[in-house]
């Protein structure tokens, strides 16, 4: 995974000279108009790329070089430079990972290069200045409060008129993507290294945990803001549809980016949503590990208490049931989506056990099979539908069914069912159809959305195919035609 880790000492001798040579490009003395500035920055990015990535014995970029690239990403006001610096930072992160897993004699251990540059700033900043050797400015780095400010800026972008064709909004979204990528590159190796034995300290020291554990970041409102972005997507799409109806108006109204190039705002928004989902999943994994560590008694008072992200999401979805459909459409990570849906059901149909902080592994977790069993007869379905509306029940079942399908593919062994499902695909599919039929018996006037119709079609098709597959197997006829 981690490619060649150029030993820092080899290139260290020439480092200073290389750094000076590269940094000199940014030197702004002499005649400068904005074009020259732009050209110099582009040349700087290219120079960093060629010395640190493409040369024969690439050298680790110095902190000043990283800072320069990162500042271009934040302040260039040019799409070209923003994209180029984002690309460069991503590749540098891959080439010189701060955190990686080293395989030493069959045993995987975690390596953290503490002196590596990171775009984050924790604590009082003393860490960065000491390691950097000399005191340097750190205004461009992200501390936890600036990270949450960034999310707020994405939620409510300032009006596009005053900033260059919405370039600021695009820059913000790219910044967020880069920061999440950095968090991920730090988090995943920790997961791999602790697969066999849980070591909470490794997780406590992850960038993600330090970021979210800070007092400067109000976790609940942070999650709510993130959900806003996920939900807003559908607002934007609705607007797009509207604009499609009146194309002439759209042309005159929109800024020049929309006129002569692809709609980068929506392109970047899509990528931002992917990053956001990545972030959510990471936090959920961290929470799960935290819970495990709690039960094992590995956590200490140093770990500040924080609500789990799942609880916050569930609360939001319960109080605003109109969020359910857009949220589930946007949040496609199957395992965690299924988890959210199951927990939602368990709120209504659970055994009513009170979950306390350290004793919640005692009860059996709900599985999709159990949930479908609630709807197995019209009477039992009625009991549930009375608690939560029939529409919501249908919606949740459909999304749960899709999450369950995404886990399967043709080559997977049908005997072992993915966790949290608890039955074969064929059983799940038939029970899914039966559940819909029973809900309809209870509330005959219910509407079925196109999404749910497609699900029913898929389920019915699968039941038929799987049945014929079984029949072929029993008759001993090899091969299966669709």
């Amino acid at each position: 995974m981690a490619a060649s880790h150029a030993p820092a000492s080899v290139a260290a001798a020439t480092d200073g000279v290389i750094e000076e040579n590269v940094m000199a490009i940014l030197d702004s003395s002499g005649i400068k108009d904005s074009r020259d500035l732009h050209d110099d920055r582009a040349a700087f990015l290219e120079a960093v790329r060629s010395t640190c990535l493409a040369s024969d014995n690439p050298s680790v970029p110095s902190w000043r070089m990283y800072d320069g690239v990162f500042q271009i990403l934040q302040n260039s006001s040019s799409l070209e430079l923003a994209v180029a610096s984002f690309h460069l930072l991503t590749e540098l992160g891959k080439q010189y990972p701060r955190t990686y897993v080293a395989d030493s004699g069959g045993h995987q251990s975690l390596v953290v290069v503490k002196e590596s540059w990171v775009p984050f700033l924790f604590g009082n900043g003393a860490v960065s200045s000491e390691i950097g050797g000399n005191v340097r400015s750190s205004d461009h780095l992200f501390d936890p409060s600036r990270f949450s400010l960034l999310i707020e800026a994405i939620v409510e972008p300032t009006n596009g008129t005053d900033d260059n064709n919405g370039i600021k909004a695009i820059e913000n979204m790219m910044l967020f993507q880069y920061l999440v990528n950095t968090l991920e590159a730090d988090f995943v190796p920790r997961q791999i290294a602790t697969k066999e034995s849980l070591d909470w300290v490794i997780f406590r020291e992850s960038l993600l945990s330090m970021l979210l554990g800070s007092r400067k970041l109000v976790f609940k409102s942070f999650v709510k803001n993130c959900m806003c972005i996920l939900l807003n997507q559908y607002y934007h799409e609705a607007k797009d549809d509207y604009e499609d109806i009146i194309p002439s108006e759209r042309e005159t109204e929109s800024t020049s980016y929309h006129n002569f190039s692809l709609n980068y705002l929506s392109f970047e928004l899509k990528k931002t949503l992917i990053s956001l989902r990545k972030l959510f999943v990471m936090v959920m994994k961290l929470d799960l590990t935290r819970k495990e560590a709690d039960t094992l008694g590995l956590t200490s008072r140093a770990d500040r208490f924080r609500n789990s992200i799942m609880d916050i999401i569930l609360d939001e979805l319960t109080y605003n049931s109109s969020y359910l459909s857009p949220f589930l459409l946007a949040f496609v990570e199957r395992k965690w989506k299924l988890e959210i849906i199951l927990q939602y059901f368990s709120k209504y149909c659970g055994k009513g056990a009170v979950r306390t902080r350290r004793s919640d592994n005692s009860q059996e977790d709900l599985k999709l099979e159990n949930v479908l069993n609630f709807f197995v007869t019209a009477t039992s379905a009625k009991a549930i539908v009375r608690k939560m509306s029939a529409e919501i029940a249908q919606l949740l079942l459909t999304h749960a069914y899709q999450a369950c399908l995404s886990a399967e593919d043709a080559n997977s062994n049908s005997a072992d069912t993915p966790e949290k499902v608890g039955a074969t695909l064929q059983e799940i599919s038939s029970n899914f159809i039966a559940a819909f039929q029973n809900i309809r018996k209870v509330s005959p006037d219910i509407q079925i959305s196109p999404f749910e119709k497609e699900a029913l079609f898929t389920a019915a098709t699968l039941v038929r195919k799987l049945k014929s597959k079984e029949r072929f197997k029993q008759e001993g006829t090899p091969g299966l035609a669709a």
Partner: protein
Amino acid sequence: MARNEPLDFENEDDPLLPAPRPAKRSKVIGMDDLLLDYFQSGKKDKLKVKAAKSKHGPKGGYDSGEEDDRATQQEITVCKIFEEVQQKGKVMDARDDVPPWGQQFFRCQNPPSNLSNGGVENCHLLQSFSAIEDIGFDLEMHQGEGFLEGMLLDGWLLNLVRICGFVEDSVASWTLTNLLHSPNEKLQVSAADFWDGILSLDEAGEPLVNLGYFPSYSVLKRAMLSYGYLFDTSGTKASISGSTAAGGPDDSLPHNIIAWLRVVSACCKIRKVHSIFSPSEAEELLAIAISLFLDRRLEGLLLVLGDCLNSLILYFNTSEWETSCVMVAESIAQRVTLDLNCLRVVDCITGTNKRSKILRSQVALQLLKISFGLKVANVEKILKLVTSINVKEKECDFFRLYVYLVLMDNLLFSSDAFRDKTGMVDAWRNYLRNCSTQIGCTDWRFYAPKARNKASYLLQGSILKKSSGDGKSCVR
């Protein structure tokens, strides 16, 4: 807190630093304030001194006053001259300025007129369903294509196909048509996701889905033609370049280009089990992908383009690559204009893997070959031609020199083909040294400072490369 914030003078030096936030510490006296205070108080002191002088010795005071006046008048004239020169310089700059990179490869679109859906509403998937059991709901199957569109958009089609491990040809071609030609952006994205999902291998290296229908080069090329891509090279160079062209008509914009690039990348993934493109077809696709880097309107797609470029570079077999690389480089060199555009192309081939390094070097070689009108790409001859440019001559075209410097450096140092030819490397370094010393610091002719700076930067780099190489061999 305070020690983390930059000192005020630091901000001024670095143009990249963000504008300082509305600081709460305005009470603290900054370096600038002190400096300002000092100058002001200095002036006052002088005035005081003068006043004192004039009081004490009226004669001398008169003289010095006159001297002072004369000095200021001189100062004013000098300032005026300086301003005039600056103005002239600006005018000259504006006149001679080279356009920023940007070259358009798309003309008017001509959407294919006969886009049939391949009779997808009669596909087995939908037909067999109406025959089977009644599940008690009206699924509005009679909508046919519309229903299938919903299946595609909401991801059910991909779910179904992956579990069955099979796609009907009619459904596959219908999704590809949507991917390449549908004006609906969401449908394009879903179709691209669909193809990305089915053109994958599982852990054992087996295809996830049995396919009878693959995207072919001809379908992809036809799509490109319908987007208005200019395949013939002759007309291309004449096409409008530069940012002025950016405001062109909206209809020349390929809306499906992202999906196109994604499906090309996806096709490369399964080379091990199925070669979708022949080597010559892959060469053509690679040349197209590289040319797209030059379109200003696609500058936000750098990552998608880079991904496609890398997938295509790795698509070739080792035996094919050597000749294919030359073919691609030739084809690119013919399409690209010899200005900032050709430098952009060289930059965009990132050189992060061995093949891409070779391609980068080769493209530089072909560009130089065309520029000097040579029939055969002879590196030594090209080197001689470049190094014979005399920077002291009055007519020296510094912009051209700048382009040559970058290309030549890429040709020599991108790949390791010329590393050991010390004669050539030394000749090149000598020339770089000449450029950096003989172009005077006061030479403000067009592009002269840029050429000088570039030469000294490259010189530094080549010295470092050499010394670190020596260091290595010493250790060994």
